[in-house]
């Protein structure tokens, strides 16, 4: 297993952890240790679903912002 400090049998990530990982991907900054933890706890399906939700939230908040400015 990868590191000490984390469980040897990785638990499934909570939605909050997945959201944090996806948010980090959007900004492009992530601690290596946190990322290595992500790779063992987050399943690809979780990452894809969270990514799609994250992109939808991102696009809709941008739309809201520009509506607010132009409205």
């Amino acid at each position, binding site marked *: 297993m990868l590191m000490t400090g984390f469980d040897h049998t990785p638990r499934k990530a909570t939605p909050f952890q997945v959201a944090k990982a996806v948010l980090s991907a*959007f900004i*492009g*900054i992530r601690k290596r240790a*946190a*990322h290595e933890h992500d*790779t063992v706890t987050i399943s690809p399906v979780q990452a894809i679903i969270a990514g799609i939700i994250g992109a939808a939230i991102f*696009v809709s908040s941008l*739309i809201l912002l520009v509506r607010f400015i*132009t409205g």
Partner: protein
Amino acid sequence: MDAAHAHGYGHGDHAHHPSGILRWIQTTNHKDIGTLYLWFSFSMFLVGGVLALMLRVELFQPGLQVWRPEFFNQLTTMHGLIMVFGAIMPAFVGFANWQIPMMIGAPDMAFARMNNWSFWLLPPAAILLVVSFFVPGGATAAGWTVYAPLSTQMGPGMDLAIFALHIMGASSIMGSINIITTILNMRAPGMTLMKMPLFVWTWLITAYLLIAVMPVLAGAITMILTDRHFGTNFFNAAGGGDPVMFQHIFWFFGHPEVYIMILPAFGIVSQIVPTFARKPLFGYSSMVYATSSIAILSFIVWAHHMFTVGMPATAQLFFMYATMLIAVPTGVKVFNWIATMWKGSMTFETPMLFACGFIFVFSMGGFTGLVLAITPVDIQLQDTYYVVAHFHYVLVAGSLFAIFGGVYYWIPKWTGYMYDETLGKWHFWLSMIFFNITFFPMHFSGLAGMPRRIPDYALQFADFNMISTVGAFGFGLSQLIFLWVVIKCIRGGQKAADQTWEGAEGLEWTLPSPAPYHTFETPPVVK
């Protein structure tokens, strides 16, 4: 990264391949196919380069001296198409073929026969493009973006270009499927995703981008084809179609395409900088995340290419903000490269020179991109030479310099010989200087209002254009040095060590130089 492998590469490594021309036609070996891709790409680079010099000859002075305006438009179009689809993209696939199996400890690409087919689709496509100059009406002159209604009106040259793009698209999709499957399924034991070299990561993400957008391009040009010959009206306003829809569809492909051409370059630079700074890459996982971030954002910014066609203010603001946000992950990358160099014991062999040149000049192209992202500024600068300067800063000093850097970095592993360092340095410095002489003045002529894709121009732009043309010929001729360095290196020279670069890490450096025909038939164990 440590690798243990129990091979005796030195003795008894039989290269089981046919000799002569059949070796290259029938090959399923990733190294042979990588070589084919790289040579194909370099020949297309020379063809596209000659077209560029033909453009610059006409632009040396105001007035029409050398070419008819229709032919000038064909030259601009074919220069773009050949450089994008014939030179830059195949070069990166060539690197992927050579390097990815060696970097992840795989014996070959996942689909070796499909790999052969992916490559051999390219020469027919290139022939179609070049031959199109000689059909009635000449080559397509609609620009590399093949905007309707120009593209729905031209002669058979347009049909040849559409067919060529379809073939190249199919080749890219097959190449991407191969790369993804190889990376996900054929890594050596112990090579987890987060231990993969960054070049492999950037190609994994690029391959997904390619699979997502090449079908969109195929759809767009198929609609043009049916508009031209089968009575449809997708882009014909008179028949109820919409020419602006073409631009949306094209740029939904075209913007991710920009990142397809730069992400593998980021990967190459991320291999070179740590080697010559003799430090591990700073912020490895940030680099991975930043790459995926850029890939995601690339899908929601396409309309910044079309601010002037008319769209609601809300849409203009949306695309402007989304575009400017790309500066964040890109900034993360530039920061990480510089942080990698920080307090490193750096040396400046040719690969490192190209990597540093890349970071410096690519950043300038990135900044002019931010300028162009601002809608009101873009409306002023749309279709001027400022845009030409911007995208040549990111594509020539970005993609092309990274390709050169990558060749100098890995060619000792490919050929078994060191390249000529003095000539390499000459190549770098002449390229760097002449590149800036060519393209820096274009910022000024663009800001002053000189339109792109026009063979004639007003007198006030004369000096800038003369400088650009002189620079272009210098840049073009400097590339002959590169050709000579490569040929010289293939023919012999100082023997390259297995660990060619003292600071280099990665499985490819555990192999002998030159890399044997078959490598990692028994996977190495990565600790």
